[in-house]
């Protein structure tokens, strides 16, 4: 009997460690590609997005903890200064434990772009591009592109005004057309090419398209300034640096769809 218990215990440990170490237990769902006009596009032409798979939920505290256990170089006391500022995981108790008022199923935040990128890569995934993220996030519950609905924009803007939504747990907002949760309403999310946004952050500079700071800036105009929520996201992306970590900034991963299958 005892040996049976032992056997079961070993099985449990083995399967548990298998699932936490750098393997996603995070489900992914297919986002069917297409073309769309993002707020900031290429020469005001349509952007083509290929099929891709996206994590259904943002990465959680619990999942990130497993990651830093496996890869100590991403622990708070060990991360290279090149890859993070001082607020990296500052809300955790220590390297390997969450603060007691943090829920394991809340989204991980206070992680830099380098850390988020490495997390995805270790799972054979990557961060979504700005275009992919915006493409998936223009869906509401029933439509792949709900941007023309006033209530869609209103909903997102009212979230932007709601404080501390990062304390909620994943899956607490709506499930969109693609089956993805929490793109709006929980935390802001890192994108692979967040540094492709060229707005100076100072409105006066942007008005005269400061060509001394940005080569070709005149070509990167906003296509639809009515989409204020999207404008705020682009402005945010344009204002952050890769070593930055923020309490309301998390991430999720995506994967290319293998076309040979």
């Amino acid at each position, binding site marked *: 009997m005892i040996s049976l218990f032992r056997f079961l215990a070993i099985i449990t440990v083995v399967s548990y460690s298998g699932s936490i170490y750098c393997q996603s237990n995070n489900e992914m769902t297919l986002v069917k590609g297409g073309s769309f006009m993002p707020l900031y596009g290429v020469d005001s032409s349509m952007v083509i997005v290929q099929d891709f798979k996206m994590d259904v939920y943002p990465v959680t505290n619990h999942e990130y903890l497993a990651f830093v256990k496996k890869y100590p170089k991403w622990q708070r006391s060990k991360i290279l200064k090149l890859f993070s500022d001082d607020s990296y995981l500052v809300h955790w108790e220590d390297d390997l434990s969450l603060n007691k008022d943090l829920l394991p199923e809340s989204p991980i935040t206070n992680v830099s772009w380098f850390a988020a990128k490495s997390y995805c890569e270790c799972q054979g995934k990557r961060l979504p591009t700005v275009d992919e993220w915006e493409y998936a996030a223009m869906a509401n519950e029933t439509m792949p592109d709900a941007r023309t609905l006033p209530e869609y924009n209103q909903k997102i803007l009212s979230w932007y005004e709601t404080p501390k939504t990062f304390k909620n747990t994943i899956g607490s907002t709506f499930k969109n057309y693609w089956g993805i949760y929490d793109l709006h309403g929980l935390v802001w999310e890192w994108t*692979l090419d967040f540094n492709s946004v060229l707005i100076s952050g100072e409105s006066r500079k942007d008005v005269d398209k400061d060509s001394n700071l*940005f*080569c070709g800036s005149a*070509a990167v105009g906003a296509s639809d300034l009515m989409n204020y929520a999207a404008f705020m996201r682009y402005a945010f992306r344009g204002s952050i640096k*890769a070593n930055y970590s923020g309490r309301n900034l998390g991430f999720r991963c995506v994967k290319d769809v293998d076309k040979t299958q």
Partner: protein
Amino acid sequence: MKNIITTILSLTLFVSCNVEKKSDKVLQKVDTEISSNTISDMSIYNLPSTWTTQNNQDIELKELQGDILVMVMIYTTCKAACPRLVADMRNIESQIPVKDKEKVKLILVSIDPETDTPERLKNFAQENNMDNEQWVFLRGTKEATREFAAVLAVNYKKISPMDFSHSNIISVFDTNGVLKHQQEGLGVNNKETVETILELAKKS
């Protein structure tokens, strides 16, 4: 009352002494970091990516260790800002005294690795009289380029098949690969940039 004041005074003294000691320690620590051969926490030599030069040689960034680096991100088909950025780089180069020239490498990193093959970079170097030891052109993967730009806080975006928009930033790194100075904008006064380079050259 007197007692209290004395206590406060001595406390203040004690605290300030402590502070001084602490900063001494910090300085010492920095010194040992510099003298040892381990790569500093802030060094770009922590980046593992491999790059190809205009001479078709594969190099890792850390092979540049020991040189002062002046870096800029450009693409060779660029018509607007890049020629001016390149001119800025040459202007900086011209202000480095002959005796210090061999301590400094001027690095141009392509943000368009698809177009900027080593051959193209070589041609560009020759056309612009930058085809000597001092000038290094680097081409990496798309991912490595994006990451490197993230480190330099350079933003860029492809806006048409042949064009990118990008930030105009020139960065100076010390011999350990730690960022020391950045100038942003075109044709800006490069006095501080040059001063930083000369200062670093004195130390190395």
